């Protein structure tokens, strides 16, 4: 996972509440066994007209937002399906940071696992930022994770983030490797709870495995 320290880029306003993961990446793009190449399907119904051509009015099809690496959104961003293909599609398109008042739980966690920084900003601050980045000349902003700041040319907005989340993003840590350091504690738990697995072999037998 690519560490996230500081990001300077174009921020695109997406003033839609409850952007769900079906909207971020429609189901038909999930038929892949790879993590890459999903950018094409990102926000597909918004970016493309039903016939297939680009929807010229959509923010990501207009300059300078076409090259956005940051999204500024509304409440409950990423609700719905747990598909990690949604953050993979964002990443593949080039989005590394999403600013919103509130995120759905599973999507929030999925972003952290992929080096995408989800920034929670109170509603009025998020709205303020959305107004700023809606102007082409002000769309470029900086996200400084180390200092926990969003920097615009009009000033800076502080944000809060869980210390553990911040550290993992900044180091790009291998979480599985870290968890495996607790293999002894996991094995202890398994020894104390043998009953948990006492009957699973019957399921395997029922399945003919």
């Amino acid at each position, binding site marked *: 996972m690519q560490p996230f320290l500081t990001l300077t880029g174009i921020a695109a306003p997406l*003033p*839609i*509440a*409850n952007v*769900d993961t*079906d*909207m971020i990446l*429609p*189901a038909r793009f*999930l*038929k*892949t*066994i*790879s993590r890459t190449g999903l950018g094409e399907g990102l926000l597909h*119904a918004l970016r493309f007209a*039903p016939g297939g051509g680009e929807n010229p009015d959509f923010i990501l099809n207009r300059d300078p937002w076409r090259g956005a690496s940051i999204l500024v959104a509304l*409440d*409950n961003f990423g*609700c*719905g*399906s*747990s*598909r*990690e*293909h949604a*953050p993979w599609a964002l990443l593949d398109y080039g989005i590394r940071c999403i600013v919103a008042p*509130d995120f*759905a*739980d*599973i999507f929030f*966690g999925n972003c952290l*696992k992929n080096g995408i920084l989800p920034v929670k900003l109170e509603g009025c601050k998020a709205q303020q930022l959305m107004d700023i980045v809606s102007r082409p000349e002000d769309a470029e902003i900086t996200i400084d994770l180390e200092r926990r700041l969003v920097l615009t040319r009009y000033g800076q907005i502080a944000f809060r983030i*869980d*210390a*553990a989340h911040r550290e993992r993003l900044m180091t790009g840590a291998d*979480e*599985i490797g870290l*968890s*495996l350091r*607790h293999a002894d*504690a*996991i094995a*202890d*738990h*398994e020894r104390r*709870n043998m009953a*948990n*697995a*006492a*009957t*699973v*072999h*019957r*399921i*395997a*037998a*029922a*399945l*003919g*495995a």
Partner: protein
Amino acid sequence: MTGARTLYRKVWDAHAVADLGGGEWLLYIDRHLIYEVTSPQAFEGLRAAGRSVRRPDLSFAVADHNVPTEFRAGGLAAIRDQDSRLQVAALEANAREFAIPYAALAGPHHGIVHVTAPELGLTLPGLTIVCGDSHTSTHGAFGALAFGIGTSEVEHVLATQTLVQKPSRTMFVDIRGALGRGVSSKDVALALIGQIGTSGGTGHVIEFAGEAVAAMDMAARMTLCNMAIEAGARAGMIAPDETTFRWLKGRPGVPDGEDFMIECARWAELRSDPGAVYDTMVTLDAAAIEPMVTWGTSPEAVTTIHGIVPDPAQEPDTARRAQMERMLAYMDIEPGRPLAGLPIDAAFIGSCTNSRIEDLRAAAAVARTGTVANGVRALVVPGSAAVKRQAEEEGLDAIFRAAGFEWRDAGCSMCLGLNPDRLRPGERCASTSNRNFEGRQGPGGRTHLMSPAMVAAAAVAGCLTDVRTIS
């Protein structure tokens, strides 16, 4: 940990393996359910890192999202879509390589993972259960802590049998009194979401309780917990009781004989202590809940069957007004229009929310009163091969077929556009599924969520209608 604890906290405490600091813990996972869409990249990651599956015996794999609901006997070869076939083939190969129990596509235990896993007795009170699917919350109906995860977490569970977690906040939803005739747990779930919104439960685990919940059968409880995610909650839970124990008895993964009695006594302890404190309390009056239908593209855009489409002009908040306008334009309905009488093109009875035998019985009771209206395509898709067998033994398939419904093989079907069952652009569907998002049932498709009996009533009437006026 001492003092009065919630059901959630009891299950959490029994699985907290290591304190990672900063409020994070390593939580042990008792059951890992795996399907074809969100797992291939996890297995690939495992191979790339030279890791193995720690507990294949606690894992279970089945293909459900991609599978066509016709020509099942043909197995893998009958999946005509190349990408879908490749995903299912990858699941089969991964299950074989890592010795994970796999329910074969044409076998007797195939089904939607959240239907078939409880049937096998994989789901037990007090367990932690995860799956790379948000509707894993379903299994909380048994007093398990069950929640959906992303693919990176699937890989983490495969490698470590644990997850890095912080304790959630807790919400107590007290559903007082008795549900009226023709009102189901789907209506309760939609009424709750209408009340607290789709982000009302964010950061919470919901515990459902009250007289109405105590009176529900396990299928109804699974529907309720299934929809907890649509209220934003990671998990829903219901304390196990005699209804739970009766349902579990005799299933392959459930202890039997004296062990069953011992387990039941232990499971009976899995309830919140008197005086346990919740972060949020919500009360619903069961008797006041009516059959519900959604009108927009979020489950919170919901009203009763006697409701009208709301008018965005009346909404003072600009962001909410814009969202309503967007929803009405997508759904192609006008403000002020009554929901009852809205013509439909399709009816779908199925999905992990409402495809169990009890759901099919409720739908069949309505279907037998008439025939599917002209021009309406109506599908009944059992949640598992076992549900299908049971329904056929009871003659439900004959009722549905005689009424003009298509009777299919198990799978996720028209809940999401990943298999051949999908809406065409502009089609309007009465659906027992869980999400009415834009394009969810197929690009351009329009979804109205409701209960199985309400969908059957709509299929027969050709429009949204109050099931209570039919049966």
